[in-house]
């Protein structure tokens, strides 16, 4: 599974945790990433894959006031993104706009469109609706779920509604259902909870401990993939929340992040603290299930769902993002600040059935 490093590298100056695909940029494959340095001046990098696909070019370098714990690009405006940051003692979240660039790289200032400053607790993440233009934003802190109305032109963000997750449920993150504008999943210590944004009520829950990350399948409705500390990756059909549809072994240590491919069915990336990124193929459609469920065959005969393991990292990998423009490319970010963009093309044709 080793293979030489085929990826294209890019180094950040400091440690970093988060990377995001710039979905609104339809002309280039670009990613946004921000550094995590407690005592230094942090930066946001706009990275673009060169047209030949051989190099990563820094398109913009902006200073950011605090260390960045979460970063998400706006899915309908390539110049807008959100960050969650921390000063060490306090937390904040903001929406930023990249100033117009005129080819010069003189570290222009980011323009702060809005601050999401209604939080009293540690903020975990800010979510955009992944499927298109929507004027709402979600931010999640340890205890609360906030729904914001964002007006970019007026540069305001207002709390539309807010819901506490309830006692003893410390939220750790979340995901917004790309198929349903009103459905959001939040992860907490012992379960994944599902919310209806219209009523701000809990609709459903999957009981599962230590979920690190959750990701909706972009192609298939009702499919949610979760990454757990020790017990690997689970794929859930939300109509049957009792037990997972599939189980993947995950990583040697914790499975930190998981991401479904926006284009190819069943293609899943996971990043782990064992300094590897794993590429899985785990289709969940019904007929697939029927064929693979032949009990007569010994379990060893099943095709290994692990397509490839990228292990050319020096440190834990926390950041993971598929490119939505070129869905066979993904970017990964290890803690030491190294961005690696890889193509999964070599593994596609064989099993996924895509030329």
């Amino acid at each position: 599974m080793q293979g030489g490093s085929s990826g294209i590298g890019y180094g950040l100056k400091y440690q970093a945790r988060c990377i995001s695909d710039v979905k609104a940029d339809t002309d280039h494959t670009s990613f946004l990433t921000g550094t995590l340095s407690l005592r230094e001046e942090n930066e946001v990098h706009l990275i673009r894959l060169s047209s030949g696909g051989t190099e990563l070019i820094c398109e913009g370098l902006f200073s950011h006031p605090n260390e960045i714990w979460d970063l998400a690009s706006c899915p309908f405006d390539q110049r807008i993104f959100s960050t969650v940051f921390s000063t060490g003692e306090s937390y904040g979240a903001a929406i930023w706009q990249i100033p117009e660039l005129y080819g010069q790289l003189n570290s222009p200032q980011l323009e702060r469109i809005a601050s999401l400053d209604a939080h009293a607790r540690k903020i975990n993440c800010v979510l955009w609706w992944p499927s298109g233009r929507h004027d709402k934003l979600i931010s999640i802190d340890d205890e609360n779920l906030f729904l914001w109305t964002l007006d970019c032109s007026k540069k305001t963000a207002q709390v539309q509604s807010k819901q506490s997750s309830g006692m003893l449920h410390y939220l750790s993150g979340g995901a917004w259902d790309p198929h349903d504008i009103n459905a959001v999943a939040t992860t907490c210590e012992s379960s994944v909870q599902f919310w209806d944004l219209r009523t701000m009520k809990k609709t459903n829950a999957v009981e599962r401990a230590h979920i690190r990350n959750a990701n909706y399948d972009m192609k298939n409705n009702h499919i949610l993939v979760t990454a757990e500390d020790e017990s690997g990756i689970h794929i859930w059909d939300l109509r049957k929340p009792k037990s997972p549809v599939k189980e993947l072994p995950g990583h040697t240590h914790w499975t930190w992040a998981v991401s479904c491919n926006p284009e190819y069915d069943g293609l899943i990336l996971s990043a782990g603290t064992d300094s590897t990124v794993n590429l899985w193929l785990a289709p969940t459609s019904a007929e697939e299930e029927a064929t693979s469920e032949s009990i007569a065959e010994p379990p060893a005969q099943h095709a290994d769902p692990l397509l490839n393991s990228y292990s050319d990292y020096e440190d834990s990998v926390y950041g993971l993002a598929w490119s939505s423009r070129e869905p066979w490319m993904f970017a990964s970010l290890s803690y030491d600040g190294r961005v690696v963009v890889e193509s999964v093309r070599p593994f596609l044709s064989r099993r996924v059935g895509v030329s």
Partner: protein
Amino acid sequence: MGAEDNVPLDDKARRMRDLLSSFYAPDPSTNNAPSNPGTLDAINTSSFDADQYMNLLMQKSNLDELLQRHVEMAAEIKNIDTDLQMLVYENYSKFISATDAIKRMKSNIVGMEANMEELLDKIMSVQSKSDGVNTSLFEKRENIEKLHRTRNLLRKVQFIYDLPTRLGKCIESEAYVDAVKFYTGALPIFKAYGDSSFQDCKQASEEAISIIVKNLQGKLFSDSESIQARAEAAVLLKQLDFPVDSLPVKLLEKLEQSLGDLQLKTDDIENASMEPNDPKLGKVPDSVHIMAHEGSIRGFAEAISAYRVIFPDSEGHLIKLAQDLVVKHFETVEQCVKGRISCANLLVVLRTIWTDVLLMDEVLSEAVLPEFSLEAAQNALKQHVASTFNYLLHDISDVLLRVNVSSKEAAEENPLQVALEASKKALLQGSMDVLLDFRQLLDDDLGLLVQLRDFVSDWVQEGFQDFFRALYDRFFLLSGRKSSSSQDQGLTAGAHGEKVLAGLVLVLSQLSVFIEQTAIPRITEEIAASFPGGGARGYENGPAFVPGVMCRIFRSAGERLLHHYINMRTQKVSTLLRKRFTTPNWVKHKEPREVHMSVDLFLQELKETASDVKQILPQGLERKHRRTDSNGSTASSRSNQLRDDKTNRSNTHRARSQLLETHLAKLFKQKVEIFTKVEHTQESVVTTTVKLCLKSLQEFVRLRTFNRSGFQQIQLDIQFLRTPLKETVEDEAALDFLLDEVIVAASERCLDPIPLEPPILDRLIQAKLAKWNEKNPITP
């Protein structure tokens, strides 16, 4: 060479024949298939055109070939000429001989006619003379015939008049056969003249016959009479036109009742199964019982044969009866199989059944009882094999589940070891017993089993295959890894009701290794030795028991279970650490006063793991030299010094260069492989557990922000961990690396990373060590 020579020769001969036949053939069109005149082969056809052929030849061939062709052709022409000549000569000689024969015939025929006419005259005179004799004797012959007829009639009349008395005599002497014969003989006459001349006679003999019928009926239904006699009676009754159809039904009912007594009772079989346990007492009554059973079956068989003679129509009914009996037999067998029954007992039962079947088959071969019972026995044996394996599986899981209970009580010293040994024994002993048991089935020369021998060895092999597969599933079920939805709901509930013990998982893992390395080879050997390949299964399906596949499955199972065990252990530590890192406010941490108690808990957990592991797993082969004799404090303070240098330096520099430095350090340091393959040894498991826990610790640290005191607390905790961990872990380099990583991570996440002064650090650690030793007296 020979072949090459032959081909052209044959070719030539064939062509010759064709030519000749075409010469003699009446119709030239039936000649061989017309071939294209444009090719060289056209020479043999009727449409052969010499000029065209020549042209073609000239065009196609070079000089050599032409020459060769020429030589060939000349030779062929010569051959054909001689053949033709020979044929002409032969024909000519045949003609000559034919004309000779015709000439001879002509001369022979000339004198025959006169002789024939003479013969005719003589025959005519013979005929006229014989006619004369016939007519002269005719009258006398008619007379004699008439007298003879009268005499016969008179004799019959006499017989009829005598009939009543004769019947009376017969009744007296019980010669019913004769009586019936006489009566039936006279019956046509009674029918014709009974109303007129022989009325008295008829009445008297009918009375006598009614007595006979009564007697016969009595005989038929009396059990004391022999079967033969009864059969005779039935036959006679039938001859007397008595309505006998109702009789067989009644009799068969009786037979059916007697069948009830013949059934094997489950109690009997259980008695039989008691026998081996209690050889002194059980055997005698049992064999007596079997003897009695055999006797009654023999009686039954006789009855059947008699009935067949008496009532030929009742065969279908009898067949059904016999089959019912066999079916009932096998039903009881199946019941026994459902319970736990050893092969020996099963054999006893089968043998009884088989003798019964053979006895019945002798008299009723139409019922195809052997085939019938063969099929039934096949099913029964199959079930038996399946249930035996099922019980074995239950035994093993029972033993394993006992671990859960016993280790909870913690009464024993090494519960895991005991459990492992017990389950190993249960598995190996159990499967050996099973094999031995089945071996009996094979060795027995019972006709029934001989035919099934191939099947049995296939079933046993298949049984093992399925058994191991089921065992595999059961292992994962017990380990709680699979939330199995398919089978064994009851057991799932049982296993999930209480939390699965980590120790059990370790036992299962070790058991898997044992199965792979010892049990399967042993069983394979045993099977190869005593169950010579079935073959009935057919080769396309492959052998029934594939040890290679099973070994592979269990190897992977062993690894998975081991990983699962480590996972369970690390999960516990993770929970511990998670609490440790989420509860305090690290940014407002107070100055460290002592090593945090979570470290104790961590070490406690490790100790548990180590004790689990020590009970079951073998020691690794290459053991590193362990510093057991150094008391740890000096070593720790020394390494302490080194670390302080580093952290001090990095502190004075800016953090950025610190990061660079760690990166550089990483570059030059050999990349430490943290996550190596786990082996089934004590050290490997403990080391992996520790590594995973430390990695988790690092990740938790990275998620926090610390003030100076928080950082110092971490530093203190880690520093304290260093010594005890080194004593348990084999890979010191990786351990050092990971511990350093934790401290680096903490300093990176610290707002003000100033480490503790070494003397303070040392003092705090000493204090903790003293406390630690007080609590846990050093165990050798």
